[in-house]
């Protein structure tokens, strides 16, 4: 299969080889990845809880979003870079791991959820998101879906680490 050849080629690059063979490079990059992920998920949760109507109600939703989202995006960029480096070191096994695949399904769904929110109910955030105001149902649903999907990202990510070498290889 062409994708498998591509994965093997990625593993053979010098960057991937260095990460795989150096004793401490993988844990360092992994630590940065965990740090970035905690920042991504924690900051998204602050927005999600506001959208659901459970926390930060004293602050206007649009204000809170502009406080938090720059941190989210910066951390997300860090998570993507470190994640790509970790992936390259063992691309074939990661790509064939079902937990890893589930993590990416959650990630894509979280992205779609965010896009739907911004194109839909999120456009009127200035109107319904005033301080101490009850949030509309679509915003609450978007917040709850986001929270659940990001919890899924963490759970499947952690499970990947425990199952990576036990995954039967699909040839």
């Amino acid at each position, binding site marked *: 299969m062409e994708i498998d050849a591509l994965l093997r080629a990625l593993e053979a690059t010098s960057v991937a080889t260095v990460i795989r063979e150096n004793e401490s490079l993988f844990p360092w990059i992994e630590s940065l990845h965990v740090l970035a992920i905690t920042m991504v*998920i924690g900051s998204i949760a602050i927005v999600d809880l506001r959208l659901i109507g459970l926390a930060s109600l004293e602050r206007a939703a649009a204000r809170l979003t502009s406080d938090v989202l720059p941190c989210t995006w910066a951390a997300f960029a860090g998570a993507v870079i470190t994640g790509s480096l970790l992936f390259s070191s063992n691309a074939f096994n990661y790509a064939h791991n079902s937990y890893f695949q589930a993590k990416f399904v959650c990630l894509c769904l979280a992205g779609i959820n965010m896009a739907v929110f911004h194109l839909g109910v999120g456009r009127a955030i200035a109107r319904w998101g005033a301080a101490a105001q009850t949030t509309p149902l679509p915003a609450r649903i978007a917040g709850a879906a986001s929270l659940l999907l990001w919890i899924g990202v963490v759970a499947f990510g952690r499970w990947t680490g425990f199952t990576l070498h036990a995954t039967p290889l699909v040839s």
Partner: protein
Amino acid sequence: MRTQALDRFCSWLEQTPLSQAIQAAGWVVPTVQTIHILAIAAVMSSVLMLDLRLLGMVGRDQPLERVTSRFRPVIWWALPILLATGVVMIIGEPARSLANPVFQLKMLLLLAAIAVTAGLHKDSRIIAILSLSLWVGIVFAGRWIAYY
């Protein structure tokens, strides 16, 4: 620090029925680790929001007390969850954690971070930078436990 008494305690704990049960059920450790990471995410984002406010980079239009009363309770609520899930991991693999120098370093950093976080209401840039550095160090030490 690695004493004979600590080693004896670890091998005793390893043999307890609870530890054996955690070791036998493969799902327990990844599950509590997931909860542990989610609680850490709550701490890290709350510390970040508090510290960015102290540094004057975010939310300067609202009073410091409001930011503190919104985010610091999150840290105090997350700590018991971190402790409970951490204890499950220790019981499951005592020697990997208790006798591990990185784990011991993590606990020292944690004590320092709690002390500094308790002082976060003071409008001080040094406290802001110090607390964020300590919590970042805790995350790094946490991941490195697996490699020592």
